[in-house]
């Protein structure tokens, strides 16, 4: 079953994915303190609380593509992004870079694989060291990793800054002397400086004003062409993802519920959650519309619903939905969804 799903997912023409995750899981456990442990041993205290932030996700990203990862707050999209970027170790599951498990690679190859994946963060105010000048922020990593000589660093930083649309004359300044959009460009320059092949962008434009968002989004598209980059573009903003992504994965409470080519997915969403999400995106061409929102809120990941996580909010839920977890399987060439309704 999963064999067919895999072949459908990846047409023979495409080779090894640039980045692939298999059964990746992240659990955050709130450990007991000493008192809690003793109480627990005596059988009176509460059990340790476990948050299933990411729950057995499979995802493959082909070279050169933009995969949009969409979900609401608390769905685990950032945690997934961080694990893929290598900033956070997974609890379970494997990360494969060009088909090779990063965890088992020998030292030098492993460093190269880690360097090839860079991350751009949401908050350009928190992700830059306020006590370093722009030239240090951008130039430090390539120098340390031996990509440029100490003497060549200055010229290299100028080149990268120019590339992301910043005036190299400003490189002696500190981050606080820049606007939000410019800071995000500094963050992008820092990521680009180590010549990555894959960028994980976590809500990279969410904190910016509309007109600045457009500038940065355009920059991402330019860089993709110029440097042959692959993106995992994480966002809660469906219209942004629809604009930039080739393929889209929709996440709900730690699991991917639907995945497919952007155009097909937005034209005919399969999963009831995707349908609800798309229906509620405000659009310029819909005037004085009557909002008919989906009921309820995202349940707590501390205590996720049984079976399909979406069943308490789903208008089509049956008994089966609360009993068994639907399989994430192929529903059309290149498209997968996890919904029992597809079996009928």
């Amino acid at each position, binding site marked *: 079953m999963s064999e067919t799903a895999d072949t459908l997912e990846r047409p023979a023409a495409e080779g090894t994915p640039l980045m692939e995750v298999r059964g990746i899981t992240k659990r955050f456990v709130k450990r007991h303190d000493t008192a809690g442990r003793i109480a627990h041993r005596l059988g009176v205290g509460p059990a340790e609380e476990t948050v299933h932030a990411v729950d057995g996700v499979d995802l493959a990203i082909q070279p050169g593509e933009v995969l949009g990862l969409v979900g*609401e*707050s608390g769905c685990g999209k950032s945690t997934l992004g961080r694990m893929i970027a290598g900033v956070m170790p997974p609890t379970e599951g494997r990360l494969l870079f060009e088909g090779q498990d990063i965890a088992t690679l020998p030292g030098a190859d492993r460093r190269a694989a880690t360097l090839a994946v860079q991350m751009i963060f949401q908050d350009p105010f928190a992700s830059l060291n306020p006590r370093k000048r722009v030239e240090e922020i951008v130039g430090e990593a390539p120098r340390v990793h031996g990509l440029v000589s100490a003497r060549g660093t200055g010229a290299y930083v100028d080149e990268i800054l120019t590339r992301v649309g910043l005036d190299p004359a400003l490189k002696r300044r500190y981050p606080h002397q820049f*606007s939000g*959009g*410019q800071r995000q460009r500094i963050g992008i320059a820092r990521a680009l400086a180590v010549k990555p092949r894959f960028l994980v962008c976590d809500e990279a434009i969410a904190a910016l*004003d*509309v*007109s*600045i*968002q*457009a*500038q940065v*989004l*355009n920059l991402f*598209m330019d860089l993709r062409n110029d440097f042959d980059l692959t993106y995992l573009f994480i966002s*809660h903003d*469906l*219209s*942004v993802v*629809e*604009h*930039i992504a080739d393929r889209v994965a929709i996440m709900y409470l730690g699991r991917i519920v639907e995945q497919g080519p*952007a*155009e097909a997915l*937005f034209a005919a969403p399969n999963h009831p959650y995707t349908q*609800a*999400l798309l229906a*509620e*995106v*405000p*659009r*310029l*061409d*819909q*005037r*004085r*519309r*009557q*909002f*008919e*929102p*989906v009921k309820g*809120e*995202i349940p707590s990941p501390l205590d996720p619903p049984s079976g399909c996580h979406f069943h308490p909010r789903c208008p089509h839920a049956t008994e089966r939905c609360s009993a068994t977890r639907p399989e994430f399987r192929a529903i059309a060439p290149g498209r997968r969804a996890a919904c029992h309704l597809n079996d009928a």
Partner: protein
Amino acid sequence: MSEPVLAVEALQTHFAMRAGLARAVDGVSFSVGAGEIMGLVGESGSGKSVTGFSILGLVDPPGRIAGGSIRFRGEELVGAAPERLRALRGNRIAMIFQDPMMTLNPVLRVDTQMIEAVRAHASVSRDAARQRAREALARTGIPSPDERLRAYPHQLSGGMRQRVAIAIAFLNAPDLIVADEPTTALDVTIQAQIIHEAQTLCRESGTAMIWITHDLAVVAGLADRIAVMYAGRIVEQGTIDQVIDTPLHPYTVGLLGSVPSANRRGEKLTQIPGMTPDLLALPPGCAFRARCPRADAACTIAPEPRAPRADEPDHLARCQHPHDAPALAGAGAE
């Protein structure tokens, strides 16, 4: 049209700072009628929130209303006695903030706060006030309102808190609600719920609403009319259809072009060059001049609001070179 609920005329709100005088709101005029929803759109620093705060008399020093008038049901609010404003606030005029914790007191239960809000403006018994609070919560679509009444704000989720804040705003059936980015911090499905509640309550009770946001798409689906602010001035206003389908001002055109949409997938977005100007160092004339593709020598003179199209007398723009309808229809179709 009957007398509007709110009529703002040439409003000036200035902040005197050591570095100079920031004209955060610089000659803003608009009006809102009963049951009408007006979208006030702009980027950070455009003065949209300060306009909202000015209406409620909530501008604190170093800011002050330096001129103009705010008439609420015919009554002048600029220079009104603080007691009078306090009597109106939370009663006839209410505000919904971006962060519901600005409305809610974290150490008081929801019912305590709501009963207080009712009894501050009407002499009713605690039980009657409690009953009204319960009804208000139920109206905003909060499940099991009795339980929520006994909760503290920290026990509620972000969406639930915002709904409680909205319930408080609607508690005394106000004539006007100023909503300042009420859904910006929320998820799409929760945003849709909040907009739905606000929309329904306005339509049912005839409350006028000013919805302040940076999100044009939200306003397009919600509001009847829209005003676009840039550097303290309303650069364009009109009905939703007029402004979004056939905008006059180059800034509005640029903003609309920077919203990603399905029919331009993968194409480059129109970007407005440069960044939002520093209010302390505005160029003379049109503030958008430096970023505008149509700017020329005429733009050094500050343009007054006018309606360049004969068939749209209520579609105003502050621009020396407004887009004319036919040219734009062509640009929009490409």
